[in-house]
């Protein structure tokens, strides 16, 4: 553990001068790769949740209607995201955060975290989708559009959750706080995403979903901008 930390710090020092943003994202990947048990944990969490849903629905492919299929998928993704992203700040020790503080600007730090967790969540959502389709069937008619919605939905979830986890990590009961702070704030995003992916499921004409898609992008931009603007104030404490 200690050697890992030292290696991390040396790595950061060596590369920080070039481009701090890319280095920080690299560092996130590196530390995730070194703690593969955490990554595998998330994947297993995803798989077990999907399996629980599958078992609860009588072990038959195609028994549930597309609307339930869709809602269930997003609920699974929401819980996985909460678990995967919640640790982004809570797992970092105070000392290490202080160390980053002395090296980089807070804006760079939050952007790197958001990008990293955005990518992680896209991958998780795809793995989830494959496994979910495997056991529950795949009624999606417009798959490319569904994947685009999944990508932007995961980005939105992870950027909001990164910020909420940064807020919650300052309080003592942070794990409960992540859930109660993020679920209500994520509902607008989830409603839009569920609506969009339902249109993709039914294979509706894409031009009919433009309004909702623009709203989804707008929510993503707002969350990202707010994290960028507000994070420096959290950082100071």
């Amino acid at each position, binding site marked *: 553990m200690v050697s890992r930390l030292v290696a991390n710090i040396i790595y950061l020092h060596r590369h920080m001068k070039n481009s701090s943003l890319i280095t920080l994202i690299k560092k996130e990947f590196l530390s995730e790769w070194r703690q593969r048990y955490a990554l595998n944990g998330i994947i297993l969490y995803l798989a077990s949740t999907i399996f629980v849903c599958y078992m609860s629905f009588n072990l038959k492919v195609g028994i549930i209607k597309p609307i339930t299929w869709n809602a269930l998928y997003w609920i699974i993704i929401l819980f996985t995201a909460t678990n995967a992203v919640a640790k982004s700040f809570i797992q970092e020790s105070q000392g290490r955060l202080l160390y980053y503080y002395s090296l980089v600007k807070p804006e760079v730090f939050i952007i790197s975290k958001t990008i990293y967790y955005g990518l992680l969540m896209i991958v998780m959502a795809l793995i989830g989708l494959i496994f979910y389709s495997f056991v529950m069937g795949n009624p999606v008619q417009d798959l490319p559009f569904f994947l685009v919605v999944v990508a932007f939905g995961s980005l939105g979830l992870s950027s909001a959750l990164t910020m909420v986890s940064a807020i919650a990590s*300052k309080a003592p009961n942070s794990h409960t*706080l992540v859930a109660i702070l993020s679920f209500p704030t994520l509902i607008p995003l989830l409603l839009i995403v569920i609506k969009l992916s339902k249109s993709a499921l039914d294979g509706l004409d894409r031009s009919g979903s433009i309004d909702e898609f623009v709203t989804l992008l707008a929510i993503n931009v707002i969350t990202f901008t707010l994290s960028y603007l507000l994070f420096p104030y959290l950082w100071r404490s």
Partner: protein
Amino acid sequence: MKKNWWKILAIALLIYTILAGMLLDVPRLSILNETIRNQHFHVTMWFGMIILLTGSMVYAIKYLSSGNLDFDDKSIALANSGILFGVLGLVTGMLWAKYAWGDWWSGDPKQNSAAICLLIYFAYQILRNSLTDEQQRGRISGVFNIFAYAAMIPLLFILPRMTDSLHPGNGGNPGFNFYDLDSKLRVVFYPAVIGWTLLGVWIAELKLRSKRITRALED
């Protein structure tokens, strides 16, 4: 006395709202009939809530940029009275829905959004109460306040408009949108909004003053 004119105005406007709202003639619309009078209470309380929560958000920004704890006190006091009006707005709405739609809760998009909005602000309270250091509490809850406000806007103003709602003015129901807000309703509606908002500010001010006294006693 000079400083208290707005309190007298608040009382006068609210007495006027109650009397005029109950007694003045209202337009006859199908379905709504006499229940249209509820808009002087339910809709105006929501307006008051949004104004109060906006004020709370503005003070959160002011606190973050200055670090003056007085702004944080103002922010939480306004948020509290905003929550109070949110709850009252929800209750008056449910009471009306019982008679207009036949059920306390019909799963209407606007009802759901209102409930979620209250959940967000209850979470804000929990977050505040779980932090002990004053400066830290102000900063973190200020950040969440702004974040929550940004989440509340699409929830209340964009999402309900994307689906059909049972609410008057939506989905072909007879309504009192701004465009067809009858002038008979307007004479009560706008004074009522101002009245409820001033009452909310008054409650917030009382809380703020007791907070200041506690703080002075502690020092």
